[in-house]
């Protein structure tokens, strides 16, 4: 029989056990960088103080409830006002709060400092994914690294932001549609991204690996699916990643399924998604040639943007980091890799054997069914017919085969 005592014990036990979860990639109690460590060092003693105060108060209440419970005794004399006690109850919280406030303000100031930035990355939120672009500095470097190509162009990617370990990274964030909030719990606190404003967030990771995060400001239908991952690579691996991102576009071999996929991509996807350097069959890869395929997502998507797919298979997530491009086994190989081997594993990208083809196919077949995105035309009246997120494209199975073959080469 479930008695109230057993119920309370069960709930308390469940709460206690939930704190033992081993697979908790968004655990705020496992800092992996300087900024998160500062927050951790602050929140741990505060949590302890709050816990002790909480236990004392609850114990005191319990003692009063038991000791003075109704046993049919006469009503005791009622009194009001005891100045020294009231002063004491004001003084104790004041002292505790002041003690907490001093280091808190110090940490807040330290986290807002941008003077020691070594790498700047721009991040832009939109329903329901994050875009990252790496600006080129005046000296031609990107994120403090010199690209192997002579005149580097800005790198643009989505879902996963790649940073070098041991580097003080500054994210400059904004939003294209509604307010979002950026949070990688193991690397720093939250930062709202408000349209029309630019916000800063410091990131630093000491250890190579993947650090997961989640949008923490309700931003519409698929808010819960708006995820992000920070990939920390050793500086040498970051250099490799950087150079790979700047590699010129390579067209698929003629007569292959991937070549058919390129044509399908241009016909079906290129109006919203950009693949840098892609040209159609009219001309050359000369950038001034009007055969260059340029996307115009502002005409079709409410936020005015769609993920750049230039090196899609160099990442290992898609659909706003909602789904993995890797199979469970391959994903585990990357996520659980030893830090010294992590860079190699990650930079392998997505191979044909490791591709999570089932979910990618489902996505291409009917993306709004895979991730809620206002696919109902009647709900698009407020957006002048523009979609929020990727619409249903009615692709045939042959087209999906072609697209997957083409996208597999994008790394």
């Amino acid at each position, binding site marked *: 029989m479930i008695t109230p005592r057993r119920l309370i014990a069960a709930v308390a036990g469940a709460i206690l056990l939930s704190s033992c979860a081993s697979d908790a990639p968004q655990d705020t109690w496992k800092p992996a960088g300087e900024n998160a460590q500062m927050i951790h060092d602050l929140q741990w003693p505060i949590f302890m103080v709050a816990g002790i105060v909480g236990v004392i108060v609850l114990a005191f209440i319990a003692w009063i409830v038991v000791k003075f419970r109704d046993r049919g005794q006469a009503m005791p004399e009622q009194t009001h006002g005891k100045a020294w006690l009231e002063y004491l109850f004001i003084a104790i919280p004041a002292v505790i709060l002041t003690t907490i406030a001093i280091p808190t303000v110090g940490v807040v100031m330290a986290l807002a400092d*941008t*003077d020691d*930035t070594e790498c*700047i990355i*721009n991040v*832009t939120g939109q329903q329901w994914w994050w*875009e990252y*672009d790496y*600006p*080129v500095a*005046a000296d031609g470097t990107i994120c403090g690294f010199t690209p192997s190509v002579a005149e580097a*162009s*800005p*790198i*643009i990617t989505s879902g996963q932001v790649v940073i070098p370990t041991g580097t003080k990274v*500054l994210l*400059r964030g*904004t939003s*294209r549609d509604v307010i979002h909030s950026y949070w990688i719990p193991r690397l720093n606190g939250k930062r709202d991204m408000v*349209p*029309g*404003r*630019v*916000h*800063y967030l410091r990131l630093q990771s000491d250890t190579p690996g993947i650090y997961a995060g989640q949008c923490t400001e309700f931003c519409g239908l698929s808010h819960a699916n708006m995820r992000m991952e920070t990939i920390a690579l050793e500086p040498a691996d970051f250099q490799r990643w950087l150079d790979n991102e700047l590699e010129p576009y390579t067209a698929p071999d003629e007569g292959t399924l991937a070549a058919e996929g390129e044509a399908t991509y241009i016909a079906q996807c290129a109006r919203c998604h*950009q693949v*840098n350097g892609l040209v159609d069959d009219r001309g050359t890869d000369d*950038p*001034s*040639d*009007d055969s*260059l395929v*340029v996307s*115009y*997502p*502002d*005409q079709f998507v409410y*936020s*005015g*943007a769609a993920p750049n797919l230039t090196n899609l298979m160099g990442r290992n997530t898609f659909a706003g980091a909602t789904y993995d491009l890797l199979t469970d086994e391959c994903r585990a190989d990357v996520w659980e890799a030893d830090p010294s081997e992590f860079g190699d594993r990650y930079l392998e990208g997505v191979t044909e054997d490791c591709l999570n083809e089932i979910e990618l196919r489902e996505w291409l077949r009917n993306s709004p069914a895979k991730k809620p995105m206002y696919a109902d035309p009647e709900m698009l009246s407020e957006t002048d017919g523009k979609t929020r997120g990727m619409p249903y494209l009615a692709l045939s199975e042959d087209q999906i085969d072609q697209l997957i073959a083409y996208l597999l080469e994008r790394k």
Partner: protein
Amino acid sequence: MFTTGSKLLIGSSALALVATLLFGILDGGLLGSVGLISATVALSVLAGINVFTRDANVGSDEVESFGGAAAASNRPGASMWPFTIGLAATTITLGLVTYTAIFVLGLILLMAGLAEWLVQAWAERASAETGHNSEVRARMLHPAEMPAGAAIGLGVVIYAFSRVMLGLPSKTSTIVAFSVVASIVLAIGSFIGSRRSISAPAMTGGFAIAAVVLVSGGAVAGLNGEREIEEHNTTAYYAAKGECGAEEISADEHASQTVAGKASSAAEIFLTETGTIEFQMPGDPSRRSDALQLPRSNPNNLLMRNESSEPRRFVIDLAEGYEGSPPRMCTQIIEEGGVQLLTVKFAVPSFAPEVEAVGGYRFTVPGVDSASLEVVVP
């Protein structure tokens, strides 16, 4: 078993339910369904209350009790609610042929009048004691009447006062008038506060006079119309219209809608004394002149500063024909040492052929050949 009133309300509830089902099946409109469901629920609740209170009366067949029943001992008092409902019906009719707002007002009046009338009718027969009946009515309706009355009163005061303020001939006169009125209110308040007691008629009379003065002043001022108020568009307004000619346009650089943009801009752009353009981005303390990178499809708030010794404007050519991008945007003339906010949205990347055709995105300053800053949009 059921009283006359109960029968009416139960029948109305059933009718509303049938109407809801029919409407839901045949039409399926959300708004209509919600309205009919609400009506069904409201009528059902009223029917329940009525069954419970039995019309606040004894059964008509209980002859002995009927004559001596408490509810039968007092005649109903005068009521303004039938008149209100008549007025509401007229307003609704008027609203149907004129404006929706009048129709809605009539509807609100009708609902309020019906509620008041129903409760008053019930309260007057609640018991044999008039005082108790009045108290019952007050207990039921005051929680609605008091806030509604206060809101209406406050609305009338604010609207009338705003008409007076807008009707005064100049901004200065409004400041003077406001100060005088505020001083009078303060003085009267102080006077009342300093008195040990003050008679109710004196207070009522004073407030009545003040109300009459305010409402009549508001009516007169409203009929006279507002004074001419000069339009102060922001710099962003003119920039979005692409008014980039040589003429100087008076834009309000202090308009409130630019405050947020100024507080958190994507970049600051400087026309230097030497005639070059430099920029500085958040998080990077250095001033650069190579190429400014800005995101695509995003309103970029840029602070444009003129550090040169002459009034100048910044201009940027954008690719034509895409939504959100006028072909050319510019600031208004910026005085020496001045600053203006410019919000620019790039619909296409700078590598697009149509952008390449116009030489890429580039800020320039008319009259200063050396002033040029490339903008890269990835």
